């Protein structure tokens, strides 16, 4: 398993770019596109960490397995948000309430 | 038998078998009370007392079985005699008499009235148990420390020390009911879903090592993976007992997430046993021990793993908490994981202990199928009863007793399964006590030197 210096630097810079790109987009309006972007960026990052940092590019089977697991979790959480979307209008209507009381709609 | 002191196991296991018979008999009486509550005079057989004997006798004989297993396998693994046979017999006397007098005491309504299942023993018996455990740990640890250390003995010791340490929580009885339950689970859960699993894994590893002859190296690696996943999931898995008992709500998530993974070590043990049986040589004459070992891993996977998972998620448990689903799980889990384990190691060791090397195993093998069929049938009946009960009580809102009336048929079926189980258990005991020789006499002097 050979992890060269340049491959690690490359991995780190790619990871950082993806994270910062998301940070600048973080205030974007919730949408299917946004969810897809977050999911894919996060999945790409997990793949880089698995392959380069954890050195799984030496074990392709394990890389595929672990990546599939993390991707599945990200995709299922994002997918569930698409299936059960936040009712935006209500959210906006309540936004000032949240700001004044600081209490989110708690329900058990 | 390579070491004289392995004979100590004989005493422990005979005591265990006696209490095993008591345990299943009282189980049958309990099952009878469910379907014909007025048949037996209630002043002599109140249900709470019958249940208490059924459950307490179970724990006592399983522990006796574990002690026996330790006295049998530690000399072979450590390659030396037990440190002090005398202490081992003193320990047996204290533990066996303590257990027996607890059971007899229950018949006369002498018990600690804390409403804590399994821990109803009066304080002085609990103290006796602790003294016996200390003697045991001293004796076994000294033997292991002075001898060869193997993964099997290390894991076994870890499990046995854990059993003793967690039992100490039985001495603390908080006044607050919620707290009381939390501490009660420190004993009960951390025993059966923690430390006992370590004992189970190490005894199974010993059996696989001896029966299949697969390399110790391979077996040890399986053992490490199994106990790693058992401890990882089992310790925080305690949270699945904290639903609706007054513990903070976040326990619902901790319990659900971690206990979902408790199925992993049981799955691992099943795959382990079958992989070893497949990989190893298949010419060991003690087929019965192999069947009990494989049966143990399969039934533990279903009873503890699958039936546990059925109602471990808090969303499901909201409906099934404390119904017959729990009873179904309890029966198959205890049987698969710990009863079968004890019967497997006994089946393996008895021919050596009693010098009955070639013996007819048909009775023993038959007892495996009969007992297991009985327990599985009980489990399925109780599962149906529990699902129906959950629906009637928790969805439709019937009162407890009205719901009970509706599920009577399943109690009748359970009693049938119970009767078959008792029959199988008695056959098993008979098979070990009789151990009929096969027709051909053994060749004189055919005592090979110790392998491995």
């Amino acid at each position: 398993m050979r992890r060269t210096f340049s491959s690690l630097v490359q991995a780190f810079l790619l990871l950082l770019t993806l994270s910062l790109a998301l940070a600048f987009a973080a205030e974007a309006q919730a949408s299917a596109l946004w969810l897809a972007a977050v999911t894919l960026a996060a999945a790409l990052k997990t793949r880089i960490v698995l392959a380069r940092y954890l050195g799984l590019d030496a074990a392709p089977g394990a890389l595929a397995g672990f990546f599939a697991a993390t991707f599945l979790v990200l995709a299922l959480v994002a997918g569930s948000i698409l299936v059960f979307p936040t009712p935006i209008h209500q959210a906006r209507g309540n936004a000032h309430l949240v700001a004044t009381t600081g209490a989110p709609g708690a329900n058990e | 038998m390579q070491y004289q002191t392995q004979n100590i196991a004989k005493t422990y296991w005979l005591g265990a078998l006696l209490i095993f018979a008591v345990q299943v008999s009282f189980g049958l009486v309990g099952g009878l009370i469910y379907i014909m509550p007025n048949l037996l005079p209630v002043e002599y057989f109140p249900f709470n007392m019958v249940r208490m004997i059924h459950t307490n006798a179970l724990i006592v004989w399983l522990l006796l079985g574990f002690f026996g297993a330790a006295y049998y396998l530690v000399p072979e693994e450590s390659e030396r005699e037990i440190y002090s046979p005398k202490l081992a017999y003193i320990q047996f006397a204290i533990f066996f008499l303590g257990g027996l007098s607890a059971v007899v005491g229950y018949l006369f309504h002498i018990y600690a009235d804390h409403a804590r299942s399994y821990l109803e023993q009066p304080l002085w018996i609990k103290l006796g148990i602790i003294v016996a455990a200390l003697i045991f740990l001293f004796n076994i640890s000294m033997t292991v420390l002075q001898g060869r250390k193997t993964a099997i003995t290390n894991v076994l010791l870890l499990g046995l020390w854990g059993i003793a340490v967690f039992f100490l929580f039985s001495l603390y009885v908080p006044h607050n009911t919620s707290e009381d339950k939390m501490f009660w689970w420190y004993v009960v859960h951390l025993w059966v879903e923690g430390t006992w699993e370590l004992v189970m894994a190490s005894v199974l590893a010993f059996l696989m090592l001896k029966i299949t002859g697969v390399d110790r190296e391979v077996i040890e690696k399986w053992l490490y993976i199994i106990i790693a996943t058992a401890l990882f999931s089992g310790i925080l898995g305690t949270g699945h007992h904290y639903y609706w008992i007054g513990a903070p709500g976040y326990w619902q998530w901790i319990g659900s997430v971690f206990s979902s993974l408790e199925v992993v070590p049981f799955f691992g043990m099943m795959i382990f046993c079958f992989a070893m049986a497949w990989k190893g040589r298949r010419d060991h004459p003690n087929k019965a021990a192999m069947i009990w070992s494989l049966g143990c891993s399969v039934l533990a996977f279903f009873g503890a793993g699958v039936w546990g998972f059925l109602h471990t998620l808090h969303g499901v448990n909201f409906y099934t908490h404390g119904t017959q689903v729990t009873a179904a799980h309890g029966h198959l889990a205890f049987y698969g994981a710990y009863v079968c384990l004890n019967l497997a190691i006994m089946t393996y060791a008895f021919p050596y202990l009693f010098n009955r090397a070639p013996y007819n195993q048909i009775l023993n093998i038959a007892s495996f199928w009969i007992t297991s069929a009985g327990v599985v049938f009980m489990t399925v009946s109780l599962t149906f009863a529990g699902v129906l009960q959950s629906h009637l009580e928790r969805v439709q809102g019937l009162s407890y007793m009205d719901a009970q009336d509706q599920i009577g048929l399943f109690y009748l079926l359970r009693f049938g399964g119970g009767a078959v189980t008792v029959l199988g258990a008695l056959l098993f005991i008979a098979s070990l006590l009789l151990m009929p020789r096969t027709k051909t006499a053994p060749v004189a002097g055919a005592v090979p030197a110790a392998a491995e």
Partner: protein
Amino acid sequence: MGKVDRDRLPHHCRMNAADTPAPVATADSDWGPLSALPGHPLMWVLIGSELAVFGLALLGYAGARARDPLGFALAQDNLDRLAGVANTALLLASGFFAALANRAAHAGEAAPARGWLAAAALLGLGFLGVKGFEYSGEIAAGHDIDSSPFFTLYFLVTGFHALHVVLGLIILGIVARLATPAAVETGTAFWHMVDLIWLVVFPCLYLMR
């Protein structure tokens, strides 16, 4: 008694303490599929278990959110996304240093390996600092582990992750003392796992909405 003698005995006579068949020579007396992975195989069992736990918790989050999307969205708005991004950057840089430590250790350079490990640990401490800052703000605003289903899961998942950061720091300390290739490989594998989990947890809890 040798194998051949034993086999000559009638079958029923072989049942004895020495019945254990001679060990079967198995080619794979190593860790099987785990052998291909860098670091100690048991570390990979742990990594798999951790991923399973966090994965299940996040699926539980998705399930709980589905029952109350509005409540979750309102609660989620209270999180400090920028702090989360900062923490992501800290962990990624820390992971980078840990990877360099591993590289140095494999090259037999113990001192640089220790230096990189120290750098990785320092950024790990930074992560905990930011997390503590976030928690204190949230708690001051009246959110705690019991205040709403969202915050129960948020505190459980991120708190459990933070505990792993603490554990990871201890592990980095231990392997820095040893500084052998095997130890550093295994210790940094744990650290990368903590990193990896954050990369899944952060988008799910902070960004997806």
